[in-house]
C-alpha cells in the first residue's frame, strides 16, 4: 500500500488518512460512484484517490465504460467507480445509460458529483438529475483554481444550502480539498450529515402527474427507494424503466435489497448492471 508521497506532496495535510489501494478493490466496505460532466477533472480525482493511471484525455466521450479502483480512508475501505462523463442522464445514449444504471441499480453508498466551478450552471443540471435518483450525494466543486483565474468565486456554503447536499471545493490537480471531500463522503454515508436534496418542482401539471403515479408505484413495489424518479421516467416514456417494471426486475431488486440490506449494495456494485 503506497502512501501518497510519491506525487511530491509529503507535507500536504490534504492527504492525511488517505491510502490509495489501486486495483485491489475486492474487499471493501463502501461503494462510492464518481459522476460528472465530461472534462471536469473526474478522472484526475479518480487517479488521485486510487493511485491508478487511467487515461481519459482532454476529449469528451473517452470513458465509455466505468473504471473501478479502491482507496482507504480512516480505516474504511472504499470502492470507487468512475462513471462515464455525461451532460445528462436522460438521453439514453450508451454512456448515459451506463452511468444512470449504476447510480440506480448499483446502489452506491454515495455519489460524488464532480462539478466544474467555471461552468457551474451546466454541471448543476446533472447534479439535480443525480439528486433525483439518490439522496446520498456530495458535490465536489472542482477546478476552483481555474475559476479564480477566470475571475469567478464560488460560494460553496451557499451552494450547499441551496442544493441541500454538501458541496466541497477542491482542486484535483493540485490535490486541494481532498481531505474535506473524503471526510464529507464518510459523514454522509454514516449518516452524520443528513442530506435533503432539492428536487425540481416543475409545472403544477407536472407535479400532479407525478403525484398520481407515485402511490401506484409504491403499491407495486413497496419500499422502492425512488418512486418519484421512476414516476418521472415513466412519464417521459423511458423504455428501459418500463422494461424493468414489466419484467419484475425492479421488484426483484427491491426484494433482494430488503433481504440483505447490508451486503446488497456491495454485491450489486460488483455485478453492475447484470
Amino acid at each position: 500500500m503506497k502512501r501518497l508521497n510519491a506525487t511530491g506532496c509529503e507535507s500536504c495535510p490534504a492527504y492525511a488518512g488517505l491510502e490509495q489501494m489501486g486495483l485491489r478493490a475486492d474487499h471493501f466496505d463502501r461503494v462510492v460512484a464518481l459522476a460528472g460532466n465530461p472534462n471536469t477533472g473526474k478522472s484526475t480525482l479518480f487517479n488521485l484517490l486510487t493511485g491508478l493511471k487511467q487515461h481519459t484525455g482532454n476529449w469528451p466521450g473517452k470513458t465509455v465504460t466505468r473504471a473501478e479502483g479502491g482507496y482507504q480512508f480512516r480505516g474504511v475501505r472504499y470502492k470507487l467507480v468512475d462513471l462515464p462523463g455525461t451532460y445528462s442522464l436522460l438521453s439514453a445514449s450508451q454512456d448515459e445509460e451506463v452511468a444512470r444504471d449504476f447510480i440506480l441499480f448499483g446502489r452506491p453508498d454515495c455519489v460524488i458529483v464532480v462539478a466544474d466551478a467555471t461552468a457551474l450552471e451546466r454541471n448543476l443540471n446533472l447534479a439535480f438529475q443525480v439528486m433525483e435518483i439518490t439522496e446520498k450525494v456530495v458535490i465536489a466543486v472542482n477546478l476552483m483554481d481555474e475559476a479564480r483565474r477566470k475571475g469567478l468565486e464560488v460560494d460553496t456554503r451557499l451552494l450547499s444550502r441551496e442544493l441541500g447536499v454538501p458541496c466541497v471545493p477542491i482542486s484535483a490537480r493540485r490535490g486541494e480539498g481532498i481531505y474535506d471531500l473524503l471526510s464529507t463522503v464518510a459523514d454522509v454515508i454514516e449518516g452524520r450529515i443528513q442530506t435533503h436534496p432539492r428536487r425540481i418542482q416543475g409545472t403544477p401539471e407536472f407535479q400532479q402527474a407525478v403525484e398520481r403515479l407515485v402511490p401506484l408505484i409504491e403499491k407495486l413495489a413497496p419500499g422502492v427507494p425512488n418512486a418519484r424518479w421512476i414516476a418521472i421516467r415513466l412519464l417521459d416514456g423511458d423504455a428501459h424503466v418500463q422494461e424493468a417494471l414489466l419484467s419484475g426486475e425492479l421488484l426483484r431488486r427491491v426484494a433482494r435489497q430488503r433481504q440483505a440490506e447490508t451486503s446488497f449494495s456491495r454485491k450489486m456494485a460488483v455485478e453492475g448492471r447484470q
Partner: protein
Amino acid sequence: MSESEMLAQEVLREAERLRRSLSGNFRDEMVKSLYTEAERVARRAVRPIGERKYDLDRLLDRLVTSPWTGLPIMLLLLAVIIWITVVGANIPSELLAQLLFGIEAFAADLFTAWGAPWWLTGFLWHGVWRGLAWVISVMLPPMAIFFPLFTFLEDLGYLPRVAFNLDWLFKKAGAHGKQALSMAMGFGCNAAGVIATRVIDSPRERLVAILTNNFVPCNGRFPTLIMLATIFVAASFPPLLSSFVAAATVLAVVLIGIGFTFLMSWLLTRTLLRGEASAFTLELPPYRPPNVWRILYTSLIDRTIFVLWRAMQTAAPAGALIWILGNVYLGPMSLAQRLAAFLNPLGHLLGLDGAILLAYVIAIPANEIVVPTLLMIYMGTGMMTELPSLNMLKELLVQQHGWTLLTAINLMLFSLLHNPCATTILTIYKETGSKKWATWSVIVTLGSAFVVTFLVATLARTIFRQ
C-alpha cells in the same frame, strides 16, 4: 398473469394516459425546469471577483480555428510531428537493431558450437527471433516518439479543434469530424487509430472511421515511402533540390491517402453504411496544461507497449513462416522464389512484380518487414535482409530486377492503400466484435490498392509505350 404483473401494466397505462394529458412536450418542460433551477442556483453561488484577466483560451482558439491560420497551423503541427518521429527514430532504431541482431548472431554461433542442427538454429534465431527483432527495432522508437507528442496535443485539448476545423470535409463525406483524430492517430499506428475511433459515439460513423483508417500511412510505411521517393523520384533532380523533391513526394502520397479516406468514407456512407447519421455535437473543452508523467505513462504503457505486444504476437509466427519459405527448396528455387514466380503475372498487371506481392502477403504482421522480406526473396538469402547503402539497393532493384519509375510509384501507392497489417486487422476485429467488418476492412483497402495500381500501370503503359 400474476397480480404484480397486472399492477405493473396498470401503472404503465396510467403513465401513458398522464403523458398524453400533459400539454406540451414532457421532456422539453422537464429539461427546461432542470436548467432554469441550475441557472438560478449558479447565479446566486457564483460571484465575479475583480477584473477578468485577458482570456488566453479565447486567443488561442481564435488562432487555431480561424479561417486563415487554423489549417496551416494544423498541417504544420502534423508535418513537424511526423518529421520528428521519422528523423528522431533513426538512431535509437539503429542501436536497437545492433543489439538485437547481435544477440541473434551470438546465439546462432552458440547453437552451432553446441552442434544443434542448422535448421533448428535457422528457424529459431534467423526466423522467429529475427522477425521479432526487426519489428521491435523499427516499430518501437517511432512509436515511443510519436505517441507522447500526440498524447500531449490530446491532453492539451488541441485535437477537438482539429475535428472542428475539418468537420465540414468529413460531413461532405458523410462521416464525423472526430474521424480527424483517429486519422491523425493513424499516422502513428493504424491499430492505435482504430482504437481511437472510440470517441465517435455513432456506430455507423465509427465504422466508417475504422474501415478507412488504413488509408493514412503509419510509421511502419513511412520508411518505405521515403526510401522509394529518395532513390527513384528525387534521384533525377540536382542534389540541392532532391531532398525537397523527396519530401514533396512523400507529402503528395500522404495527401493522396487523405483524399482516399474522404473518397472511401463517401462511398461507404452511400453503400455499405447508409443512413442513421447521428446528431453532431462536439465540445471544445478549455485548454489544460498537460501532466508530463501522465502523458509518458499513457503513451508508453497504454499505447506503445500495447500495440507492440500485439505486433510481436503476429511477428513471431510470420518470422518462422518467412524463414521456412526462404529455406525450403523445390529443385533449384526456394519456396519463396517459386511463389514469387507464380504471382509474377498478377504483379506485372499491377505494375509491380511477384516478389513484391509475395512480400506483402507474408509480411502481413507488420509493414516494417516488407522491404527486408522483399530483399530476401530477390537475393535468395534464407533470412530477412538489409543492404548497407541506398545505392546498392537501387542497383539491385533497377539493374537486376528491372524496376522503373512506374514500379516505384505503384509500390508507393500499393503501400499506401493495401490491406491493414495483421495487428490492425486483429484490432478491428476486437473493436467491432465482428469478423464481417474485419473482412470488409481488408476488401475495401485491398480492392482500392488493386484498382488504383492497375489503372496507373495500364495508363502509364498506354501512354509511354505507344
